[in-house]
């Protein structure tokens, strides 16, 4: 709860800082400090809550379970990593640097609500707090028409999916007569399943599929991720997406767990379609940024496995997947913003010019492809394990493994361009020692996740 208050206050502080401080560098420095402070607050929240008794907050609107607080801490850590890696690039997007950081703080407020909600009202508010700042961030590069287009497209799609989500919530309320997700379980289970409840679950599933960009509701993703300023794409594709997944999982685990035979097949088909569309389309992309957008759809397919498996391993799966995917993707975007040319050819010969950059990029790509000893492998292992333990949907697991094999092709194309093709990559901003240090830290995190994933799961 302290974290929600802290992030809101920090966001307001950032907005006022924009009034009084004109120097972009000191604003970025202040933001970095506040993100570190926020990480401290989330850890404080985590340590003051006991493992076995979840605290009910605000008249049972929120419930701070231990895994929620742990997820908050990890995602705040990822945001801090993001600011440390890309704070300099955020300054280049436009004039209003303090506002960009303020919006990121507000997005984190939405994230905290989404990880702790116990009432559909809080879920709705959380999703909106998460989404509305993103519409602005997508359009923050005002000189660029593509950025404005991405913003408009994202806004229209987001508002549309909000409408669907609200209809789902309302139909569910019509069936269960409550918005409380834990009370809902008993009420829906007591009598014969109401058609209103089924329709509500379906609507909510579709709305969440929009938010996490699962096929066939993924159409906006490549355009928005491609059009937005690259620094903000990095944030949208990682921390925000993980938050939406956590909310998705929370609702379906807590409320709809006992009804799983009614919805699991629909979600399995969505998962299969997401894996297929994401991986196959990524193969044909010419731009690495666009390829990463499709790869984020493909990774969403894997994260959906955690929602499909209604058991305890799913929580571990989503947390480890969220952190492994976020860290690797933030890292790869941090390299991408340094380059001028986002096509595969832009990476040609990077290994000669910047050997360290090429090396860390290789590790990040290994992680995304799920090669052992990197975080991505353990993440895929845990989410697939969750479904295997459930004992059904084996066809989907085999299909996912096949699709992971396809993903190796397009990730490795970047590595081939860096190491085996001659060329002189154009670097848009100089790579300083600090950048290199942060990239090595990120790289070390990716490997640590692959070697000792238990470190990140001790609190679950």
């Amino acid at each position, binding site marked *: 709860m302290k974290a929600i208050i802290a992030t809101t206050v920090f966001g307001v502080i950032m907005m006022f800082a924009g009034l009084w401080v004109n120097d972009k560098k000191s604003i970025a420095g202040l933001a970095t400090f506040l993100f570190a402070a926020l990480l401290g607050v989330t850890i404080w929240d985590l340590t003051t809550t006991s493992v076995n008794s979840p605290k009910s907050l605000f008249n049972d609107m929120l419930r701070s379970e231990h895994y929620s607080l742990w997820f908050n801490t990890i995602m705040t850590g990822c945001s801090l990593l993001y600011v440390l890696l890309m704070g300099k690039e955020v300054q280049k997007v436009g004039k209003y640097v303090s506002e960009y950081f303020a919006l990121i703080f507000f997005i984190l407020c939405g994230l905290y609500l989404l990880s702790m909600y116990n009432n559909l*009202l809080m879920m709705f508010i959380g999703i909106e707090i998460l989404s509305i700042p993103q519409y602005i961030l997508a*359009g923050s590069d005002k000189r660029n028409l593509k950025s404005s*287009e991405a*913003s408009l497209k994202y*806004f*229209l799609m987001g508002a549309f999916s909000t409408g669907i989500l609200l209809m789902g*919530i309302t139909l569910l309320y019509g069936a269960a007569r409550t918005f409380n997700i834990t009370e809902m379980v008993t009420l829906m289970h007591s009598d014969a399943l109401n058609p209103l409840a089924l329709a509500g679950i379906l609507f909510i599933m579709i709305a969440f599929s929009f938010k996490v960009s699962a096929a066939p509701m993924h159409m906006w993703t490549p355009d928005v991720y491609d059009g937005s300023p690259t620094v903000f794409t990095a944030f949208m594709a990682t921390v925000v997406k993980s938050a939406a997944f956590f909310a998705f999982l929370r609702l379906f685990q807590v409320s709809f767990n006992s009804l799983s035979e009614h919805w699991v097949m629909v979600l399995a088909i969505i998962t299969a379609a997401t894996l297929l569309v994401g991986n196959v389309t990524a193969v044909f992309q010419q731009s690495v940024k666009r390829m990463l957008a499709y790869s984020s759809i493909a990774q969403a397919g894997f994260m959906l496995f955690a929602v499909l498996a209604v058991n305890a391993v799913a929580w571990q799966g989503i947390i480890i997947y969220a952190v492994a995917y976020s860290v690797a993707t933030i890292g790869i975007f941090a390299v991408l913003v340094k380059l001028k040319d986002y096509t595969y050819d832009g990476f040609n010969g990077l290994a000669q010019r910047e050997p360290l950059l090429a090396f860390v990029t290789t590790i990040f790509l290994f992680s995304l492809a799920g090669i052992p000893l990197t975080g991505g492998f353990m993440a895929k292992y845990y989410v697939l394990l969750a479904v295997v333990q459930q004992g059904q949907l084996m066809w989907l697991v085999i299909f996912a493994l096949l699709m992971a094999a396809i993903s190796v092709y397009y990730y490795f194309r970047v590595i081939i361009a860096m190491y085996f093709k001659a060329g002189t990559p154009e670097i848009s901003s100089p790579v300083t020692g600090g950048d290199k240090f942060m990239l090595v830290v990120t790289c070390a995190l990716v490997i640590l996740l692959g070697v000792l994933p238990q470190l990140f799961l001790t609190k679950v």
Partner: protein
Amino acid sequence: MPVNSTHYLFLSLLLFSIGVMGALMRRNAIIIFMCIELMLNAVNLLLVAFSKIYADANAQLFVFFIMVVAAAEVAVGLAIIVMMYRKVHSVDINILNRLKH
């Protein structure tokens, strides 16, 4: 004929469907936006109806939150549309196809 919950349900589902069809078929960003607002208001109507039938104030509370959030969304959305209009002097969403290549 007495009006019961089914009537409200069908009325708001009808309004919701009109909103969805409009959002999917129209090409003008402002009209799409209005159709999305229609979807939200259909939800509001249904929530108020449920609130009355179940004698539960929670649903009416939810309606207030939807209104507030919708207003916030309008503020951001209209600004985005104005930003777009300044650049291309049109609010036709067919220009969004330019992002595909």
